[in-house]
């Protein structure tokens, strides 16, 4: 069966450094999609440094989603994202993000994320979520870092109590807003849960779809199951220039689901997270089919908060209908 919707996500590295390639790819896809009955959806993830008016206009016209990297408070962001002269990038990128987002919001669109990463250095990451919201952005994602366990900024099990406390705090803030106004103050990516018309059971079983529905292609044309596997030889699936693709790896991932992963069948959150990140299993537990325990712990907490918030919103909507 041919797929109608095809998605292409430019991220890196920094895709705006290859802007002409991005444009050539998008323009070519647009020129042929109708004749083949396809619908391309492009997304771009950028650190914002090279954004200018021309790129903003193009992104807002062509990209169905865009992800703008910002780690939160100026000092947090600039510590993690220094420019070559040692200064941080916060003051450069925030005005550009505001301009880009205004262009989308003016058209009634909410298809963007301002996305940050939290590390051991900013375990009080709710402050960063609130800071990003205070800048006027309302589609937010702040996610735990993926880093080698011995890296100084890596999150470890010792950090979990603090992280749980922060997720609870964020829930309380959002829930209070729902109670007072009937609406969430902003969207937080990890608390978005669709209890009614969410993904089908098939999707929930097989999870992220890497290696089959989704692959990563490097600048050299090498194909990997996803961006997290890039550079690990045993997971190289093929190359777009030679046309070789190893079906064994695709088949392995097709058979990787919540009933073939260790521990998932006993976990209440299995139909929400769908087995977690395959690459993290490999990188941190040494096995794709063994979910990364630290990620599982955080995921369960987020799902718990997401469900609680969804219930709050439902109750607020029901109350509004009654009045």
């Amino acid at each position, binding site marked *: 069966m041919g797929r109608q919707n095809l*998605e292409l996500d430019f991220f890196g590295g920094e895709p705006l450094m290859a802007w002409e390639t991005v444009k050539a790819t998008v323009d070519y896809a647009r020129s042929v999609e109708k004749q083949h009955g396809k619908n391309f959806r492009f997304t771009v993830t950028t650190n914002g440094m090279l954004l200018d008016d021309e790129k903003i206009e193009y992104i807002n016209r062509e990209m169905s989603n865009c992800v703008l990297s910002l780690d939160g408070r100026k000092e947090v962001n600039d510590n993690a994202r220094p420019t070559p002269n040692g200064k941080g990038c916060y003051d450069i990128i925030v005005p550009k993000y505001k301009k880009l987002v205004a262009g989308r919001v003016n058209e009634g669109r909410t298809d963007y994320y301002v*996305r940050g990463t939290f590390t051991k250095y900013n375990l009080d990451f709710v402050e960063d979520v609130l800071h990003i919201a205070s800048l006027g952005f309302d589609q937010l994602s702040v*996610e735990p870092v993926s880093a080698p366990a011995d890296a100084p900024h890596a999150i470890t099990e010792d950090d979990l109590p603090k992280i749980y406390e922060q997720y609870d705090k964020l829930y309380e803030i959002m829930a209070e807003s729902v109670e007072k106004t009937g609406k969430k103050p902003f969207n937080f990516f990890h608390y*978005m849960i669709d209890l*009614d018309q969410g*993904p089908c*059971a098939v*999707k929930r079983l097989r999870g992220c*779809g890497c290696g089959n529905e989704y692959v990563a292609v490097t600048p050299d044309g090498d194909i990997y199951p996803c961006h997290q596997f890039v550079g690990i030889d045993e997971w190289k699936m093929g190359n777009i220039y030679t046309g070789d693709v190893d079906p064994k790896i695709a088949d392995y991932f097709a058979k990787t689901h919540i009933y073939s992963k260790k521990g998932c069948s006993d976990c209440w959150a299995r139909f929400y*997270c769908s087995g977690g990140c395959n690459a993290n299993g490999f990188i941190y537990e040494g096995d794709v089919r063994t979910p990364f325990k630290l990620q599982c712990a955080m995921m369960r907490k987020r799902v718990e908060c997401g469900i609680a918030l969804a219930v709050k919103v439902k109750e607020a909507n029901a109350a509004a209908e009654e009045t």
Partner: protein
Amino acid sequence: MKHIKTINKANLKETAAKGGCGKCQTSCQSACKTSCTIANQQCEANK
């Protein structure tokens, strides 16, 4: 007093029968790069 409220009805069986069409977003894109949550994605089968 009613202590348990049903907030949505189970629909997984129904979606198992007609799901898997592949129209929806591939999962590990956009905001998520390493911590994908499937349950926040939209079904696009009826769009």
